């Protein structure tokens, strides 16, 4: 994206929503909990938020983080690293919108605990393009109109790249089968298959 809508105060829509909802949440939090957390009086309460160090690479950038064990890789990417290209569709491993590459393999990031990715190399949709030069799969999706609302699209593209690399894009039937973990409510499937076929047939390096 080359342009981001901003209001007079320099806030994006996302920033504005964050500020107003944080203020609302703060006003609703019982004062007792705020005090306890502040003074660390409750040992067990503090223990509940014990964090674990986590070192990993995302789109070739190294991160040294500290996360609760229950944080999923999807939430880590979106909420902590602000890489919001990866989408939360179902959050239960059934739609594929959260597809990313971990050490070159496509996975559903919603079912992966962040802490289980220690030392791994993650690639998200933001990491596909080469500067301003689109990845061949991204270009193909645009050429073949492989999306409507675009919500499933980052997951589709990450999955499509892996599908070709795995050697599972040899026919329309095989593509449909090996892309079956990515669903599209808008029904852009035929065009998605077109895009993947073109990339495969061109033989370009993905």
């Amino acid at each position, binding site marked *: 994206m080359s342009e981001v809508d901003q209001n007079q105060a320099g806030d994006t829509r996302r920033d504005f929503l964050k500020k107003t909802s944080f203020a609302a949440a703060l006003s609703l939090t019982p004062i007792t909990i705020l005090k306890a957390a502040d003074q660390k009086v409750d040992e067990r309460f503090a223990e509940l938020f014990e964090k674990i160090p986590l070192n990993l690479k995302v789109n070739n950038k190294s991160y040294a983080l500290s996360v609760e*064990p*229950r944080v999923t890789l999807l939430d880590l990417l979106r909420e902590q690293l602000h890489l919001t290209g990866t989408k939360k569709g179902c959050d239960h491993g059934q739609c594929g919108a959260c597809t990313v590459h971990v050490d070159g*393999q496509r996975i559903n990031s919603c079912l992966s605990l962040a802490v*289980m990715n220690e030392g791994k190399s993650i690639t998200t949709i933001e990491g596909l393009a080469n500067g301003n030069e689109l990845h061949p799969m991204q270009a193909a999706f645009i050429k073949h109109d492989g999306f409507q609302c675009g919500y499933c699209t980052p997951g589709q593209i990450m999955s499509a790249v892996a599908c070709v690399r795995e050697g599972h894009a040899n026919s329309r039937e095989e593509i449909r*089968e090996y892309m079956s*973990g990515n669903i599209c409510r808008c029904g852009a499937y035929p065009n998605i298959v077109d895009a993947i076929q073109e990339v495969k047939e061109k033989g370009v390096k993905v």
Partner: protein
Amino acid sequence: MINFQYLRTSVVKTALNLINKDSKAVFIAGGTNLVDLMKRGVTAPEKLIDINHLPLKQISFANNLLQIGALTSNSALAEAPIVKEKFPLLSLTLQAGASAQLRNVATVGGNMMQRTRCGYFYDTTMPCNKREPGSGCGAIGGYNRMHAIFGTSEHCIAVHPSDMCVGLIALDAQVVLASAKGERKIKFADFHKLAGNTPEKDNNLQKGELIVRVEIPANNFNKNFHYLKVRDRSSYAFALVSVAAALDISNGVISDARLAMGGVAHKPWRLIEAENFLKGKSPNKANFEQAAKIAMNGAKSFGENDFKLTLAPNTIVEALTLAQA
């Protein structure tokens, strides 16, 4: 999700000691089932022991025996050249399950341990003897379209959802289990259990045990085989009924047969009587239909899954026909 303690080790002995020390601890491998269940509040372990770094990912074939490390991913096992060459039925069953993304993470051991997909098990507001013993079974007399027709009990009619397990039971696999006391080996057919009076237990794994290896003896079922999975969608859906069929045909006669079904019972369902009928017979439609009839002995339906009484034998015949071709 509730918070929990997280520990990680790359030594089997350490993992076994950790699980023994704390009754509230469970192992996590791929996590594609466990994390989902934890998100939904179906299960809430207080401590997870991450076993992904244990050295249990090898696949080897020697002395007519395929040995598979329990942490091998489903996709790695499906694509392994030795499996595609000598155990292609197993490859087919693996490819029929889940999605590519899930198969890359899910492990062999985890696939065996996966819980049922019954809606009442998943819905914590619903009665479920498996999730909460004694609370009742919502599926009996409720929505039971996906449920069992063999080996059911009055407490539970859930099915085991795995495709890989149907292949493993058909191919006479064995399972190696490790604990602080040592290793033991059992038949794959004895790993999962029927619901009976203890539906809260899916299998015969004892507390403190870890699946380390699955072994499959060499066989002649790599020429005539098929895995037919019937489901509401053409892909990425659990089976209504599935059949793994394999035939060893010599001189136009079936010398040996393997038949197993998924989507029909609390454990992968081996059809021994039907296999015995087929031995020595000609691989023709009449014999396939007779085998299917024998296979359906004892089948019982619960209202919404009555159609399985027709779908199952038809799928058996079709699978055998495709295997023979």
